[in-house]
Structures are given as structure tokens and as C-alpha cells.
């Protein structure tokens, strides 16, 4: 299983568009079925990014992004109520993860069960900041632009340099590998949450 982590610092108001570009770029490289790139391609911050022409995936991403921004806004309320807790008002963290699974059939002694085994996980760590003024806002946008370009380039490098872990494509389905987008809420992505997750599983 390959774990990839992406860190990005964004204006709270840019998060939705920029993270969408990152997610789209990841999925574009990881939906191994036959895809048609969205044409004309989408752009954010003058950067063109590839998108699979798949309305279902698109709405899933939108839904998750809504969740993500909601988490950020909730955490901001919490931060307002709590004393200084590491993150100031204007700096907030969030995380969104994409997992790709391989369907495996496991034969037990008396039963056959299908399970999904994760072969790749992308974690995007987002630091959300709220610019104090317009100049800062412009600067943050500029920085977001360069970060996004770097990140898409990096995605391209990663997928090209790491190919051996991709499971064989054993199906003619449109998408051979199930995927999942998850957003741990703020309290969850501490170590405690990891244990909790394990317990749940």
C-alpha cells in the first residue's frame, strides 16, 4: 500500500476550488477504466487540471468538499470557544483522504468472502488561513496557485514512479478499483482517533 501525503496552505475561501483540483487530478490518474477527459478542461487560479467526465464522481467530490468546509467552519467555532489551543483563529487544519481499494476474494474454510484491500491512500493536509486584508488575500491566492501547480506535477511524478503496487485489473467494469473519500473531523485525526477507528473495525 502506498501512502501519499500532500500539504497545502490555503485561503479558507479558496479551499473548495483548489482541493477540488487536487482531487480531480488524483482521480484522473487512478480511475483505470476508460475515461473521457472533461473538455474543455477546468481551471482554477489559471491552472488547468484534468477531470474525468463523470458526473457521479463530480457530485461525490462536491459533497465531500461541502463536508470539508463545514468541518472547517465548525472547528472555527470550537476554536472561538476554547482558549488558545495551538491553532489560532485564522489558522485551521483539516484533512481529506482518498483511498483506492482492490476487491479480493478471500477463501475461508467454509465460506468465501469478498473484501476490499486498500492499495493506495492519498492524504491532503490543509492549513486554512484567513487573510487579514486584500493584499494578503492576493498573496495567498498567488501562493495557492504555485502550490497547486507543484502538487499536480507531483501527482504526475508519483503515479509514474510508483506503478508496481497497482493491482492487476481483473475486471472490465468501468472502474476496476473502488474508492472512498473521507474527511476525519477535527477531533478525529489525533492518535486517539486512530485507536478508535481500529476498535470500530
Amino acid at each position, binding site marked *: 500500500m502506498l501512502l501519499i501525503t500532500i*500539504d497545502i496552505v490555503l485561503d479558507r475561501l479558496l479551499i473548495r476550488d483548489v482541493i477540488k483540483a487536487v482531487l480531480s487530478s488524483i482521480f484522473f490518474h487512478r480511475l483505470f*477504466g476508460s475515461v473521457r477527459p472533461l473538455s474543455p478542461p477546468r481551471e482554477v487560479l489559471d491552472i488547468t487540471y484534468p477531470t474525468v467526465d463523470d458526473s457521479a464522481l463530480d457530485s461525490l467530490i462536491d459533497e465531500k468538499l461541502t463536508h470539508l468546509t463545514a468541518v472547517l467552519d465548525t472547528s472555527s467555532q470550537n476554536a472561538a470557544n476554547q482558549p488558545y489551543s495551538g491553532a489560532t483563529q485564522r489558522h485551521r487544519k483539516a484533512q481529506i483522504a482518498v483511498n483506492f481499494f482492490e476487491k479480493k476474494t478471500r477463501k475461508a474454510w467454509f465460506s468465501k468472502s469478498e473484501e476490499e484491500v486498500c492499495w493506495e491512500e492519498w492524504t491532503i493536509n490543509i492549513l486554512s488561513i484567513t487573510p*487579514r486584508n486584500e*493584499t494578503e488575500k492576493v498573496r495567498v491566492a498567488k501562493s*495557492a496557485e504555485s502550490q497547486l501547480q*507543484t502538487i499536480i506535477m507531483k501527482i504526475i511524478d508519483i503515479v509514474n514512479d510508483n506503478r508496481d503496487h497497482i493491482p492487476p485489473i481483473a475486471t472490465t467494469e468501468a472502474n476496476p478499483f473502488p474508492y472512498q473519500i473521507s474527511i476525519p473531523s477535527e477531533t478525529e485525526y489525533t492518535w486517539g482517533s486512530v485507536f478508535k477507528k481500529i476498535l470500530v473495525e
Partner: protein
Amino acid sequence: MSLPAAVPAVQDLRGLATGGPVIGPPVKDPSHAAKLNQVIQNFFSKAAQVIIQSRMPVNPIIMPANPDAADATAFQKKTNKWFNLELDDTDTFRDELRLWKAADAALVTASFASLPPLLIETVLDTRDLTANQTLVVLDDEGKRWNVDAAATAGGIRADVRRPEIVLERWRIELDPRSINALGVPPELPVVYKRSIVLFRSLYAYVRLLPAWRFRKKLSKAKLNPSSLKVSCRVLNGAYPVSSRGRIGLSMPLVLDRKDNTQSHTFNKIDTPAGAFTVHVTYRKNCEFRVDDSESILSSHFLNLDEHSTRKYANTTAAAGSRRYSRTSKSSPANSLPSAHSPSRELSQPDPGLSYGSLSSFHPQSTAVPGASPLSALRGAVTGSSLERESSFPSSLSSSASRNVAAGTRTSLKQIDTSRPSIQPFKSPALSASPSSDSMVTGGGSYPRLSYYRGSSSSSISNHQQRAQRPNMPSTASGGQRQSTSMSPINTFNTPSGLLAVSSSSADSSGSRPESSRRYSSSFGSRSQWHHGSTPSSSATIAAQQAVVDGSTGGSGTPSDDDNDLGEFVRMLDSRRPLKLFTPRRDSAGAADLTGVGMGTSAPRTSLARFQQLRDSHAILSDSMSASVVIQQRSPVPVSGSYSSTGSGGSGKAISPHTPHTPAIPSRLSEGLTVEYYRDQPVFEDDDDEVAVLESHVDDGGVSRCRSVKKPGLAKHDEEDELAVDEGADSSMSLAPAPQTHMAAAATSRSNSCGSGGMLRESIAKRAAMRSSPSGGSVHSNEVSSHGGHYGDDDELLFAMSDMVVGTNTSPPAPARTPSPKAAHSPAQSQE
């Protein structure tokens, strides 16, 4: 081999993937050999298509939607689904690609030479440039480099202009030599799976390179046909690539930079027939522009100057005097040409925006003010800006405005006496849309404007003769070119003509024959300049808008008419009415402004048509008028001086970035990232956060006039810059808002790139103001605590972004023009 067979082949390979029989070496299994051949052939053709389709328009292959049905009316584009990437199939370059589409793995294995590398070049076609146009390329800091000069420096004869510049060279090859090292050749399904990844990433990658950005810009400006074209060339890699007759990839164009190109190789894919690789070498600076031949001169000297005086002196006197000397170097006779460069830089997307008018006033305005009233007006505006700027500290005052003003003092005085000396808009005169300024000052003087066109061509050729470039023929040879550069002039004609209309027939928009005749005559002039360039049409709207907005400022138009007038002009500005009159253009085009253009024979019918069209254009005109606000506003804070200032001390704040950053390891732990942010003083003081928010709230209600005036005020009051801060902020935060309309209007006519650039520069200017000695001490302190290198907290953030993504080697920001969306999305989601 043939593409219809391609799709079944994909399925076959999938079948193999599901656990079919173990594939032996090619020789043992003929069907396997055939499949391998198919894969190899499609490697080449698909890679070529992915690249070519991102760089130039191609012909799709149209075929019957249902070949079996008798119904032959349903057609669809043929899709190439190879490697699970569905693209329109095309026969562009079919012949050139034939060699690779017929590749045979067995032959390749036997003889490497049988399948040479496939080379695809992306080239910039400059054949359509006229002799008085100069091609420049912008470097990362926005400095312009004359391509011809660079070519000459590179050993090309100065009198020959190369019609082609190589931007990228892709090499796609199958190297059988690696086969031996391979051991067990990978199975085809593995090859296919890896190829899926490769082609996906190739598809994404071609859209991140500088050439894509450049082409995107060109196509966004397609209503204003550029003389530049990007196209592709398919070459056989067996032969050496020749730079004969063109500017090769290895010839540097940005001369102060060692490496003008960068390379990237995609991870190879091992196949039973060899290793398949895709490699690209590309120019890092692909932002080309067409410039007036002379403006580049000043820029050239400016560049030289910058190099010798990198350390930018801050004192007013030093800066001022140096600029003077620099300009006089570039054009001793009269330093006018330097006036071009600032406005030039700001009006990037329209190659000819104001050259005709700017240059023409020069020879005439001092001698015969009446002969070229427009230029005189411009001079007047410039002069007033000079007065303003003289109270403005050093770094923002420009050689350009000073020189222009100096050159036209006399005419300016004359004009000044004949009109209210108050500028309705506190906008710098050399802003990229001079039309609005001049229009405001010249609201009532259209008869003089109308005969300006006659004198313009001669003055242009005068101007050209003074050009110091030896290979530039003077004259009107630039036929089409000139009409473009003249368009702003005609722009003036139109609104002023309409002003006349509105004053004579205030309330009826067209039933009277008299007014109808005037309407049609204004069409005559409009159609002419519409031939030239489309952006000028938005300049016209800007002018119109300025008239409307500024009418209370003394332009003499009855204010009651403004709305009707503006509406009518906006209606005119949609394309369809123009098309209606297309057949008549030629005759109408030559008509005088007051003239007979359409004649009186058919005015009634045509006006009736207009009125029908009116509703359908309402939406369009709304969005356009919104975009006009930008056109008009965004240049405002950017005095012409800024460009020269920018390339000096604060220039780095504009565009310190490479257009494209190599992929870099970006591993900073999250904790570190946060830590780093917390250390930044910039982010620690929340003092004015609330205030800023308030100013945001204000934004919605701020009137256009106010927003236009604000930057001017800020300039006046720079002494207490901090106090003005809020106001300036709000005026800037206004800017993003119209971008919404901007985006809507982009498809119709406004050039979003350009305005975006202007917008950003206007913002950057504010940043520069902050760092000026008198204001923004808070920020300066922060910066210096960070480390003396950065002159502005702009830089600070860039530095931070570098840290965050883990690149310390080169600044990452790829583009110097933030898309409208960049500014726009925050504004939108803010609600």
C-alpha cells in the same frame, strides 16, 4: 492498426488481464505479436495525439453514428479509446505519423534503426507579423526581451526574421536496446496498465507547461486575431533537427538566464519490444507578445539599465534622474517612445492598443495642436497626471509620464485652459485604457476628433521613421496592423458621435430620421474599427462608460441622456447588429463621422431592427458594461510609471516566479508547516481584521465612481498611507467583484487575461506603495525581521509558500497573471 480495430484490442488486453494464458515471447505467438504491434503503434499515435491536440486545433474524424443504419444523417466524432483515455480521433498529421503507425515490433527488435524516435515540436509561427511589429518574450519578472535581438545575439543575421520559434520538442521513442537488460519481458496487460497511467499523466502534464498557458491566452483573445500562432510539427528523429530558418530550442531568448529550457522524461515503460519513453524539452518562458517596434527599445535599455543598477536606489532624486537619462538614451530626439512601454505592459493582450494615438500626437501636438486634438488631449491628461505625480514620491513617478508631459507641455496648457482643470477621475493618465481619460476630457470635442483619422497614418509613418531599428521599414506597410493600432482612435469617434446624437435627440432612440442618420453613421465608424481589433470595442465601452459616469464631472453631456445613451451604445456593441450591416461596411467605413454612412434610404428599417434586438442584448450588455467597469478601473491605479518602478526595486513583488516549477519533494511535516506559519509576524497581528471585514461589507455598495477615484486618492494621500489603507483596500476588493461579470463576458469580447493582469498589477502597485518610505512601516518592519532580502511582505508569503511545498530551490509560482477566478472566487464565496 486501423483505429476501429483499436477498441476491440483494448478488450482483448483486458481479457488477458483477467488471467488468460501466460503469454510467451512474441515469436511464439502470432496473435501476441499482433497485439504487441498494436500497442506499440498506438503508443506513438496516442502520444502524438495527446500532445498535438493540446497545442493546436485538429480535424476530428466524423463518421456515421450508426454505420449499419440507413440513416446517414446522424454523425458523430470518432473516439480513440486506446489506453483507456478517450480522445477525439483525428487525421491531422496522418501522413507524417504513418511510419510509426505501421511499426512492427519484430523489425524494431531486429534493427533499432527501423523505428526512429518520433519528434513533435510545438512552434510559434510568427510569419504574420508585419515589419513594424516586434516580438518580445516576457521573462519571469515581466521584463520583455526582444526576440529579434536575441536571435541576432545568437548569431542570426539581423536582417532576416525567422518565421518560427521552437517552444517544445517532444521525443517519443521505443528503444529496443534495453531489452536485453530486462530479463523477463513484462506481460502485455502490465504494459497496458502502466500505459494508462503514462497517458493520463501526459494528458495532464501537457496542460501545465508554459506553451499551454500561452496558447490558452492566445485563444482567449481569439476575437482579436493575433498575428501569432502555435502549431505543431512532426519530425523523424532519425535525422538531425535543423534550426535552419527558425529559432531553435537551444537559442536563448531571455538572455540573462542561463537555462532557457527545461526537460522532463516520463518514467519508461518496458515492453517486450523495448523501453517506451516520452521526453520533452521546453522553453520556460513562453509568454510572447507583439509589440510596437519602438516600445521595445526603451524596454531594452530599461533592461540594460536594470542590470547595471540592480541595487535600486531609493532616493527620489536618484531614481528620477536615472530614469531621465535612460529614456534619453532610448530616443534622444524626443523621449516619447518610452511612454509606450509602461502602457504597453499594462495593456498586454491587445497588441495595438494605443500606439497609433500615442505615437501620432508626438510629431504634431507641439507644432499644430489643432491638427491632432486627440493627442493633445492625451497630452493634457498626461500633464495633469504629472502634476499629481510630482507630489508623489519617487518610486512611483515615471519617466514616461514626465517625458510625455514635457514633450507636450504647450498643447497641454492650451487644452487646460479650455476645460475644467479638474479631472473627473483621479486616474493616472498613462493607464492602459487611455480612452476613458481622454474621453472625459474631450467629451464635447468630437468634430476635431473626427478628422484625426486622416492625420494618423502620416504621423505613424513619421514615427516609424524615427525608429532606430534598422530593419524596420517605416510606413504604412503594416496595413492590417495599422488599422489595429488606430482602432483606439476610432474608438473616440464613436462615443463622441453618439454624444452629438444624444444631445440633439435626447429622448427618442430612433424614430426621427435625423437621429437615425447619425446612428447609422456611427455604425460606419464602428464597423471600421471592429475590423481591426475586438478589445478596442471594450475600450469604447470603457470610454462610453467614462462619459456616462463622468458626465457630472463636466463633460458637457446632459446627464439625463446618459442612461439612454449608454444603453444604446451597449446595444450597438453586441455583434449581431454589426453583422446586419456587414454588407454595407465598406461603403460606410469610409464615411466621415458626421457623414452619410448608411445614407438616409434605409434608416427606419434598420432602427426597427435595432429595437427588436435590444432585448436580446440586454443581458450581454449588462455583463459587458460590468466588464467595462473593470477595463476602466483596473488600469486606474496603475500609472504608467509602475512598470518602470516595478522592474526596479519592487519589481520582484510582481512576478518573482518561474512560470513552471520542477516537481519538488514537498515533505514538510504538517506540524512544521504550522509552526512556520505561526512564526510569521505577518499573520500574528489580527489588528485590522475586523476593519477589513467591514470594508468588505462596504464593497457591495460602493459606487463605480468611487471605486475609480479611490486609488487616485490613495496616491494623493500617501503621506498618511496607513490611514488611507482601508479605503484603498476597499477599492481593491471591489475589483474582484466585477470579475463575475467579467467571466461571463469573456466569451463575448473582453479579454480576461489582460484585465486580470491589470488588476493584479494594480494590486501590486499598492504593495509597492506600502513599502514606500513614508507608509507601511509596520510591514517593512516585519519584512526586515524576516530577512533583509524581501522588500515587501508579498515576498514573505511567497517565501512561505516555498517552504510549505518544500521547495527552496526555485520560486514556484507558475504564472504572473492570476486568472480572474483567482480574484473572483474569494469574492464570490465570501457571500
